[in-house]
Structures are given as structure tokens and as C-alpha cells.
């Protein structure tokens, strides 16, 4: 083999802060941009609340672009530990090398660190989040024996979906009370149509029909569906339609099958599709 395996230290963990050069498309549905800017200027961490696919991640990308800060995104999962965020020692050659985790990296770079779906992470992550999220703004790196002081440009942002009713996945009050919370909902009908058109290039009648379809599925929340169709799913369906997939096929694959496995529910959603198109 000609190519040697890159040194471990370069390959793993070193999450590059992403600098966003071109403006990510985002439509404001209220005063969230002003709120976020004010929170950023005041060095207050931000909690984004809202259902899946309503634009939380896009919003944070847009804000990172607007504030000209690099963005470090961490998708949290149930095995994510504090060490995964802060960093750990690795061995290269015959030496041990400290490698920053994404959170430490973001603090050093003065980036925006976005912890997506933070309730999924292990509970011990709060140990590193708490001192960083209050007025101390420090990141204790116990193993490395370092106490990182966050620069004024650094911002911690978390997202959280309060719609999941699981008692095992709740944000503790001591955590959530450190954050400025911004509530996200699905955009209003007109705005959602505009988003679909811009994202997919679909015509306005297709976009309007998709929004109506979405509203019908959202009416079924807690009547068999855990969540209605998100804006993201609508964009997916619209993209398929623009590519020439017949609308009922596109909606069945991109929306109905994404929402449920129950045959009766799928049938009902297909009936919605045949009604709105």
C-alpha cells in the first residue's frame, strides 16, 4: 500500500470549525434573529426549542454566517461523554498527545458550538456544559490540567425537542435555566410555501399543496402520529417532484413513509395526498 494511514491525531476528534462563506438560506418567522444577536452580544448561551425539521440547524448556520463566526456542530447521541466533548490523550509513535474535543476546539477558536439534540447525550456532559454556560464561561479540562477561559466571541448553543414526552429525556432545570431559550415552530403557511419554493424550485401551486398536506398530517399529531410532516420533509418531496417524480409517489416516499409504518396511517396520508393534488 502506497498511502500510509494518517496519524491518529489528525484523523479523529479534530473537528474543524466550519467557516460558512455563503449565506445559508433562512426565512425569519419572528424576532429570533434580533434575539440571537442580542444574546450573542451579551455572551449568553442559547437554547433552541422546537420540533424536528423546523429549521433550527439552518438558523444556527445562518447566524454563524451573519456573525462571521466559525461553527462547530456536535450531534449528540446516547454514548456521547464529557471526554468526547472536551478531548483526550492519544498515542502517536511513542508519545502521548492531547487532542482537543469539539467543545474545547470551539472555545479556543472563539467559534459557535452547537450541541444538537443535547438531551441524547450522557448526563455527565452537564459537568462541562454548566461552567461554560454561566457567567464563569470556563471549560475545565481535568485530564489535561487546563482551565480554558472562553473568549467573548465564543457562544454555546443547544437544541432540544420538547415534544418527546419521554421522562428519561428531559433537560434538567439546572441546565436549561442557564440558557436564553428561543422557541421554534413550523413557519406559517405563506412563509413555508416560500421556503419550499426557494429550496426546491417547485412552483407555487405545488408548494401550496404540500403545505396543506403538512397541515393535515400535523392535525394527526397525537392521533397516531408522533410528529406531523416537517418543513424538511416537504422540501424533500418538492425536490422529487421538481425532478419529475409524480406528486403522489414523491409524497408517499418522502412524507408518508417517513412518518409512519402503520398501513392504515399510510393509507390515510395517501388519501390526503390524492385530495390536495
Amino acid at each position, binding site marked *: 500500500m502506497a498511502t500510509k494511514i494518517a496519524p491518529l491525531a489528525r484523523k479523529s476528534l479534530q473537528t474543524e470549525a466550519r467557516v460558512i462563506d455563503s449565506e445559508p438560506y433562512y426565512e425569519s418567522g419572528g424576532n429570533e434573529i434580533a434575539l440571537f444577536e442580542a444574546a450573542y452580544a451579551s455572551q449568553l448561551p442559547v437554547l433552541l426549542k422546537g420540533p424536528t425539521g423546523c429549521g433550527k440547524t439552518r438558523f444556527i448556520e445562518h447566524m454563524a454566517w451573519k456573525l462571521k463566526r466559525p461553527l462547530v456542530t456536535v450531534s449528540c447521541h446516547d454514548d456521547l461523554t464529557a471526554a468526547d466533548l472536551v478531548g483526550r*490523550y492519544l*498515542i502517536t509513535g511513542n508519545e502521548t498527545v492531547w487532542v482537543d474535543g469539539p467543545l474545547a476546539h470551539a472555545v479556543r477558536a472563539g467559534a459557535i458550538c452547537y450541541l444538537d439534540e443535547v438531551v441524547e447525550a450522557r448526563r455527565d456532559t452537564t459537568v462541562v456544559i454548566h461552567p461554560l454556560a454561566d457567567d464563569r464561561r470556563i471549560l475545565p479540562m481535568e485530564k489535561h490540567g487546563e482551565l480554558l477561559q472562553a473568549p467573548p466571541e465564543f457562544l454555546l448553543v443547544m437544541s432540544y425537542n420538547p415534544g*418527546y*414526552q419521554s*421522562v428519561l429525556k428531559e433537560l434538567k432545570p439546572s441546565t436549561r435555566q442557564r440558557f436564553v431559550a428561543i422557541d421554534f415552530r413550523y413557519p406559517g*403557511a405563506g412563509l413555508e410555501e416560500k421556503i419550499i419554493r426557494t429550496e426546491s424550485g417547485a412552483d407555487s401551486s405545488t408548494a401550496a399543496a404540500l403545505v396543506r398536506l403538512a397541515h393535515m398530517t400535523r392535525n*394527526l399529531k*397525537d392521533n397516531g402520529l*408522533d410528529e406531523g410532516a416537517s418543513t424538511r420533509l416537504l422540501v424533500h418531496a418538492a425536490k422529487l417532484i421538481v425532478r419529475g417524480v409524480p406528486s403522489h409517489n414523491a409524497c408517499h416516499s418522502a412524507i408518508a413513509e417517513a412518518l409512519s409504518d402503520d398501513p392504515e396511517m399510510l393509507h390515510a396520508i395517501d388519501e390526503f395526498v390524492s385530495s390536495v*393534488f
Partner: protein
Amino acid sequence: MAASALSMATLVGRLDYLLNPVLSTRRSAGPLARQLASLPRAQQDFVLQWTEVITRTNYELAYQFAASASAAFEKMDMQAMEAWIIAALDTYDREGLHSGSEIFRQVDAWTQATVGNQVVSLERNMNILGLFACGLSGRKLSLDTAAEPWTDTETLYLPAHISALPTRAENFNIYKILIALLWAQGRYGSFQADLAAACAGYPDPVRAGALLSHIENLRLEACIARVLPGIARDMAKLHVPAFEECRSNLSKAATTVNHSLQWLQRLYGIMDAPRLPHRTALRTETLVVREARIKREQGELAQALAELAHEYKTEADNADGNPDRFRIEVAKNAEGDATFELKLEQTPVPPPEHVSRLIDSILQDLGEIPEDYLQSATDSGRYDSSAVDENAPGNPRDETESETGTYLYNEWDCKRRNYRKNWCTLRESDVQPADNDFVASTLAAYRPQIIRFRRIFEMLRGEDRMLKRQAIGDEIDFDALVSGHIDLKSGLELPDRLLMRRHKTERDLAVLLMIDMSGSTKGWINDAEREALIMLCEALEALGDRYAIYGFSGVTRKRCEIYRIKRFDEPYDDTVRCRIAGIEPQDYTRMGAAIRHLTRLLDGVDARTKLLITLSDGKPDDYSDHYRGEYGIEDTRQALIEAQRTGIKPFCITIDHEARDYLPHLYGPVNWTLVDDVRKLPVQVADIYRRLTA
């Protein structure tokens, strides 16, 4: 070998015995027996057995059945016969003896309507059509059967079978069209004019009513075409040419029900309503339901806005939350749908979901938000607090908890803003086990669902998880090895915990189910509660979570009762099953004391997550003991806050449609859920539990 057919004499004897109350000298069992004598034994038994069943409902109906049975066997098999019998019994329950008997007498009409490849029945498609109706924007609609389709704006009444068109798909579409039309009647303001009064002015009000329904449907079809073009395409296939001028005129965007009334005036006497497969009726009963809702929602909106105003109370503004400051701006969009914006002074406010649903519902009824809806509603809080007279005789209590199984609990008095010490006496006792076949029949009826839940719950049972830094294990833990290596380098000893091991995670969870045994659960609700418990227990056994079940009820503060159904340390065995079967409705719902007692029990269990799930059918309530209303709500809320302080998570599953008014206040915005159909409770409770603890 098949048993030989019953003889004429035996049949006469059996029929005489079964139908005795409706037989006379002029109407004897003889002719019935003669018809049945020619049938094979299996069919004879079928007829006799069902005749006996129907006599328990009505003797005359049973007679009609026996008289038509042999003719029916020529056209139907036993399965179809059963559907026929059930339909007749349902019709009897709903519309009385005449209509019920009619189904038995008109065998041909029934078989034509239901036996064939093109027939679509509402019952079979109830779930899909129910979801379809639910998805149409607007208020929640339920489905029921009626001979003629109509709606009271909350329930859509649809025919039990549709077979008017040659294929199943087309007939299914008729159901969709009917649902869309009936939904549109509410959505696009058909009831904003007094239709009954308008028709009463014509020589033949029935004829006028039918014609008006048709004309109004033409207008609604245009509305539907704007939002549901797929359905409008199906409707277009059923057009009759005679009404074209009327149709095109009513298709304009801004037409209202008043335009339909003008067309009625023009066309009455000239044309009659065509007999279309999707014709609907307009009924006067609708007005009653509508009036009641309008009144209810005015109160609800005032309450909701008062709460919202309180929430948005700014510091500069010391006045209590005053809904006067709200404005609702209504605009119509291109589709004719009303949209609105809620404004507090000049700033737009995002309305919470229940508020926007409420405003939307009012807009559907009235087309606007009347001025007086937004004025001086601060005092119209719906909780009646006037009845609280807290100096009722008999306090303070001097009894102690010495009596075995008796406990004393404090109660929160919201007026005093303090506890009443040892105010409630609570007794704990076992539910009397019932030795009947309830458990067996539930297990049989829900077998597929139970198997499914067991499988789902087994999967929840804690996935494999890698335990790191183990002394014994089957894989190397590289993280441990690396840090061990570092230790070694810096002169320390290499640790011995360098391996990883797969391990099933323990779900360290204890659940206490608190079952409403108040008198209001009598009948259906009690059955559904018991079935739900059986289902949940079966599923929980697969999951292995620790759980206990207690019922609660009582009369006055001196007799709060807690009924043991299953303790935490009891296995789910026959005794527990019989206790579940033995759950019977008792008295009232004094919830505070019950929650405090069960909190105490749950607090004694060692678990990381403790859940208190309440299964309820309504607000806290008690017998003439000023517990009703604000006092009971606030005491319950306080008891729940106490529970949360000890680390218990309360959750409530309710079937009360008004739950939205008080449960968020008690349990918080997400820690409760509404099961809107009692029949769905057994399946939903297990499902809710799964979601809650996944």
C-alpha cells in the same frame, strides 16, 4: 357426522319459549318453525341462538329476525348474516324498533346494499376515514353512522354502507367526498345563517331543505376545489348538467351561504334536488350543538386570553393581566380561509396551540371575533370558587393514624394559601377480586396487540451497552489502554481494567399507576380502564419495570379510599388479575390525598426514575365538600408539586375532552395526554407508556 335437523315440534317448542311475550293466537310459532324446519341443523342452531340473543334487546325484533332468517340464508352466509344482525341491533339502539325491524324485513335491500364486490362499509374503513377527517384542518371531528349524511359540526354522520357506484374505489371516494362536504359545511360557514327558518317559509319545507342542501353543496364544492383539488376532481365526475348556471355563479370566491339562499328562492318550484350518491342533509339539531359550542368557546377564549395577558404582563404595567389589550386581526387568504394575527397592544404574539385552535374554531362559526369576546373577561374565570366555605364542621381532627390502614394527610387551601393539617383521612384496602371471565376475554380479544406490545417492550428492555474499563470482558478498551499506557509512561502501574464487556442496561424505573375509580367511570370507561390495565400489565411483564397499581375514590375528606390492586412487591398473578377484573366504580375524585399517599408509597421504592401515572376521566371532584372547582384543582396541583419535589415524575392520561382547560395547569404542558376515544384506551395506554419511557 352432522347432527340431524331439529324436528318441527322441537322448533315450535323452542320458539314458543323464546318468543312467548310477542306470540298470540293470531301469531303463533308454527309458521316460523315451518320455515326453519327445512334448514340444516347448523343454520337452525344459528337462528335459535341469535333469536335468544336478540330477545335480550327486544322480543319483537327477535321475532322479525326469526321470520326473515330462512329467506336470508338463501342470500347470505353466516358471516354476512352476523353483520346483518349487528346492523339491525345498532339501528334499533339508535333509531328504535321500527327502523331496526325494517332491516330484518328488507332482506333484499340489505343484500343489494352490502353483498357484492363494490360495497364499501364505514365500519371497515373507520380508522382510515377517521384519520382523514381528523387531518382536515379545523376542529376535531368524529364519525358515526346515520341513514342520511349530515353533521352537527362536531360529528360527521355517514351511511354505514355505500354501493351506489360500480367499483369499490369509486364508492370509497364517495365517503371521502361526503367527509369533505360535511367538513366544509362547518369550515365555510353553512350554518352562519338560520337555514331551518329560511326553509320554513316555503310551502314544502322538506323539499326546500333538500334543494338548499344541494345548492349549498355546489357552493362548498367550489371551496373544496380551492384547497382539495383532488376531491373536487372526483366530485366533478358526479356533476348533473341541470344546475350549471347556479354552480358557476356560486363558484366565485366571496360567495356565502346567503347566496345559496338567494338561489333557493330562484330555483324553488322549478327544480328539485337530484338524487346524487353524495347528497347530504341539513338538520336543525346542528344549531343546538353549535350554540352550545359558541357559548363554551367564548368563555374559554376569555380565560385563555386572561392567562396569556398575565404571562405577558410587563413590568411597566402593574395592572393585572387584562385581555382588553388583545386584538385579533382577521384576514381572508386567497382560498377563502380566514387567517388571524393575535396582537398584544401593537406587538404580534405567537398564540399557544390551544388558543389558536380556539380562535380558529370561533372564526369557523362566526366568521369574525366579535368585539365583546375581547372585553372585560378578567372575571369570567371558569372555576367556580364561590362554593368554598372552609370552616366546615369537624376540624381540627383529633384522630391519629393508629387505626391500621388509616392515614392522615394535609390538604392545600388555596384561599388561605396554606395547608389544612391532617385534614383528610385515607384508608387503604384491597380491591375485592372478581372471579369472572373478564381477564380471559380481554386476553382473547386483544391477543394480536398483546403479542405486538410484548415484542416492542422486549426490545425496550435495555439494549446491549458496552461497559468500559472492565477487569473482565471480551474486547479491548482502547481508551482505557491508551490512558493506561500514559500512566505506565509516567511511572505508574498499568491498571487492570482494560477490557470492555457487553451488558444489558437495567431500566431503573418504578411506576405507580393511579386509577380513577370514581362513579363517573361507570360502564364503558371502567371496562376500558380494566382492559387497559390488563394490556399494560402483560406488556410490562415483558419489560421488567417495577410497577404497582392502586385505585382511588372516596366521599368527603373523612373517607378518602385507596384500593390496592397490585403492590410493588407482588407478582402479576391470578390474584392481581382477578383484582383488576374486580375494579368497580365507587364515589368521587378527591385527588390530592390520593396523590399524597401514593407519593409516599412511591418514595419508599428505590429507583432512579419514579413515575406516577394517573388514569383519569375528569377534574378533581368531591361530594358537596367545596372540593369542586378551584379548591380541588389547586390542592391537586399542590400535591403534584410535592410529588415532584421528592423526585417523582407525574403524568396523566385522561379521556376528558375538557382536559386542556385544567391539565396543563396541573401537570405542565407536556406531561399529560388525551385519549379522545374511550375504545382506544386499552391500546393507547400501553403505547403511551412505551413513548414515555423509551
